[in-house]
Structure formats: C-alpha cells, structure tokens
C-alpha cells in the first residue's frame, strides 16, 4: 500500500457533548486509507457513516482523537488546503447546491480554488459530460429530477479533480444502468489519475467492488477487510442490519432448498456455473 491519504486515530465525536445520555455518533475510531485505494464504508442507519464523512472534510471536529488528510492534521488552518484536494458528494444533493444554474454550481468550487476561467469552462463541461448532464447547463439544480440532481452533485466533485473522492450514498437514486455507468466512470478516472475513493453505501453489490470494506455498527468499527473477508462473516452482518450480495444470498436459499452449494460463488455467473457442474455430474 502506498502512503496514507487519510487517517483517523482514536476519534470520538458527539453531537451533544453536554448531554451524557447521548451516545457518541463515532467512538474511538481508527483506520487509514492508502492513496489510490477504493474503500466502501457500510453500516446500519445511524451507525455514524455520514458523521465520519463530515469529520473527514472538517465540517465537524472530533472531541477526541485526530484526523489527518493529505499529510496534514485537520485543523482550522489546514482545512482549506485539505478541502481543495477533496471532492465530497453529500447524501442529499439539495443541501449541496449553491449555483443558480447547473454550470454555475459545478463551477463554484473551482472558482473558490482559483482555477483560471478558461480551464474552469473546460472542466465544467467535461465533468457534466462524464455524468451525462451536459444538456442541462442552464437548468436550475433544484428543479431537476432526483437522479439528475445526484448526477450534477457528482459532476461538481469530479470537476475539482480531487485526490480523494468521498461519496455519501451518491448514487442511491440512479437507475441500475445509470448507477453502473457512474461507478464505471469513477473507476476509469481512478485508473487514469490514481484517485482515492471512499464510498458510503447500502448497496452491497457496490461494496463488493471495493478493495476494502469498513463496517460500522453503532458508532464503532465492527469489521474491516476485503469484501470476501467481510461477506464471509454472513450472519454477523445480517444481525447488524446488513445483508449479503445477491449471489451469496441465493447460494444460501438454494442450500435451504436442498441443493448442495460450496458457498464460494461470488457472482450470479459463478453460481450458475456451479449449479451446472452439479447438474451434469450425476
């Protein structure tokens, strides 16, 4: 693994520190993300994922522990430098829009980062093309469909050409094909530029594509490992309100229905191969 681009060291954060009855949203959390990695952050509703994202870009500061990003310790002073290298897509795109038109909105952060006008125009177009919203330059971001809003929010983050891209359920309202396209675009970008990705998601098929998965449970880090490692823990995941990817769920159901399964198939395709082998081996 290359150097760490982001790390949490024993971070604890509470929204209501004055009230002891309120449990911390994030407790004693340590982890590190290597430059160029794709990490999926999963966990039940309220487990602390969005809070972690906000601690990463200095929207929130921990009561205990330290956050480091881009080699700097997160502080009031380093914040702007860190943010300029970070693209963030929030859970609700409406909270993120600042521009009156789609193109102004995408340009906004570039302007703040002092990107020269000509380059800005190029980047705005390019990133909107990447998410297939180039026909909507002059539309008002708030007056778009749900999925269109999410696409524009993603374009805003891509236009920054960040070193680290943080996606907080950024594709939850896209149709399956659109979702695959956007994820593919980001993967290509990562190949080409060495982008690091932290993706918060409830979509376990998407999590299965990551290099590494972090599992949060009630503010604590419950598991950390490759998708294979994490998904092999089966019941522990379902007890936390999570689930397994489709192929693994199907394997379980087939087993219950009396078909001997190895439990090793990770995709539908492998599953069908396995069923065929069984069928033709009598």
């Amino acid at each position, binding site marked *: 693994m290359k150097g760490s681009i982001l790390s949490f060291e024993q971070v604890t954060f509470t929204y209501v520190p004055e009230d002891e009855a309120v449990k911390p949203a994030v407790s004693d959390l340590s982890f590190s993300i290597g430059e160029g990695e794709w990490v999926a952050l999963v966990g039940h509703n309220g487990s602390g994922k969005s809070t972690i994202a906000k601690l990463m870009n200095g929207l929130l500061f921990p009561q205990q522990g330290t956050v480091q990003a881009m080699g700097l310790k997160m502080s009031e002073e380093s914040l702007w430098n860190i943010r300029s290298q970070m693209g963030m897509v929030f859970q609700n795109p409406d909270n993120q829009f600042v521009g009156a038109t789609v193109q102004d909105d995408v340009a906004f952060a570039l302007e703040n980062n002092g990107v020269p006008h000509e380059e800005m125009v190029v980047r705005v177009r390019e990133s909107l093309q990447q998410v297939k919203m180039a026909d909507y330059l002059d539309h008002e971001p708030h007056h778009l469909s749900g999925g269109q809003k999410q696409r524009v929010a993603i374009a805003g983050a891509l236009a920054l050409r960040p070193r680290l891209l943080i996606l907080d359920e950024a594709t939850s309202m896209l149709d*399956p094909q659109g979702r695959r396209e956007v994820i593919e675009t980001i993967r290509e970008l990562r190949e080409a530029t060495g982008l690091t990705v932290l993706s918060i998601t409830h979509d376990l098929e998407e999590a299965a594509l990551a290099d590494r998965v972090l599992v949060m449970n009630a503010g604590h880090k419950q598991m950390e490992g490759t998708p294979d490692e994490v998904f092999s823990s089966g019941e522990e995941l379902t007890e936390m309100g999570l689930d397994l990817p489709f192929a693994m769920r199907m394997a379980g159901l087939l087993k219950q229905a009396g078909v001997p399964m190895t439990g090793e198939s990770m995709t*539908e395709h492998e*599953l069908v191969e396995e*069923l065929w082998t069984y*069928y033709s081996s009598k």
Partner: protein
Amino acid sequence: MDILLKQVGYSYAKDTPFEKRALTDVTLHIPSGSYTAIIGHTGSGKSTVLQHLNALLQPTEGSVLIGERKIEAGTKAKNLRDVRKKVGIVFQFPEQQLFDETVLKDIMFGPLNFGVPEEEARRRAIALVEQLGLPEGVLEKSPFDLSGGQMRRVAIAGVLAMEPDVLVLDEPTAGLDPRGRREIMDLFYRLHQEKGLTTVLVTHSMEDAARYADTVAIMHGGKCVATGDVRDVFANEEQLGDYRLEPPRTVRMQREFEEKTGLTLDELALTEEALARSIAQALTEGREPK
C-alpha cells in the same frame, strides 16, 4: 380508491421562459386495491406522475380522476383537503416533507390537521416510531438532527400516521439499510393487504417491483410507454432494453440457468425464494432417470 390519469400532459413553469415539459399524453389507470410499480430511468417523469395522484400538481393538459374528484387542466381545483387526506405521498427526498420542531410533532401534524384527536395522533406516532425501527428517544429530537435513513423513517411514519387509502411511495427505500428496506417494504405490503390500500411504488429496484407489485408501468421520456402484469413486463427483455431498463436479478439468473442447463423453470420467479425453490425442483426432476 380508483385513480385515472387521462391523456395527462404537464409542463413545469408553464408560460415562462423556463417552461419544461415533463409529461406528454400519459394515460394510466390505477384500480382500487392494486399494487402498481412505476419504473423508468432518471428523468423519465415518474415523480411528476406521482404528484398528480394527490393533485399536488395539476395537469396542464388532460384530466386526473381521483375517486370521485376530477382535476382538469385549465380549471384551478379548490378544496383539495379530501384528496390530500386520502392519498398519502412519501416523497423522493425525506427532507422535502419534514418541517416541525420535533419528530413527535412532525408525525402528529398530518393526523391533527385532518381532525384526528390529539391523544389518538400521539398514540399513532409512538406506535409508528417503534414499527419503523427508530431509536428510542427520537420523538423529542429535531427531525433534522437525524441520519439520512432515520429521516426517511420519520417521513414514512408521518404519511402512515394519516392512515391514507392510497399510499404513494417515491423511492421509499433509498437511504435505508438492507434490513430497514426489507422490513419497511414488508410493512407497506402488509398494510396493502390487510387494509386493502391502493399502493403506487416508484422504484429503481426491479427486484422490489417484482416482489411486491402486481402491475408495472414503464415511463420513458415523459410518456407511459407500457403497462402490464408484472410477469409479462419482466419477461419482455427486449422491451425493457428499449427503455434502458433491465429485468430483476432473479430473472437474469433464471435465464442464465435455463440457457446453461437446458432446463426450463415452470414460470418466471419473482422473488429469490421462489427462484431457489424452482431451481431445486428442476434439478431434482432433471437428475432423475426418466
């Protein structure tokens, strides 16, 4: 309650320079007691259709019949209280419908507004918070000091608390964790069956559409291009492909299995459980010497 959209057209910001056509000639019948899923890719007009179901938007062409009420283009419909009371909508983004100081007040607002006594409204709110798996102590919190999935649950509670006859759901599971997703979709289904609700679900999850709906409508470019029985719609891969959609995973796996083994399953499996059972059965029968 029957709902009928008849040749409905809708343009946002009509007669302004920003006019944007979203619907063209949409005819859609939602029979009382049915469970209809509306599918279609981003921007195809699904949310715009939904907002016609309780007259939040009024058609710029055509008409919408909601039970006895007729909402017609060109005439401003007044006194829509009754319609709003009977048709509850869960919006695509939960923040769109949360507004009150506390979760309790937010959930009680709808029922109180429609004349439900305070005690009863409170009782419903407390029961729903529990049914929707919200954490303890949430009732006195501001709905905006919650996680995304928790806000979604409060928004759903607020609509269920009104006990509508027609439940209209716009991507209700976006942002829910997998268990919440399953439990809450099952809860809608239980209400649908036990109380005879008319249910309309917009979803990008073909799996949920297959599992819960009996009728599927496809939106494409502002038009309703197909409606049909759930099995017929999902069996027609070519048609789905034309509208940049795809069959549910179960259907894709069934097809791949049939192709690979040469076996044919009895019918299109609409759930994972049904698919596993059919495959197990086909394998057993196929393996037995004839």
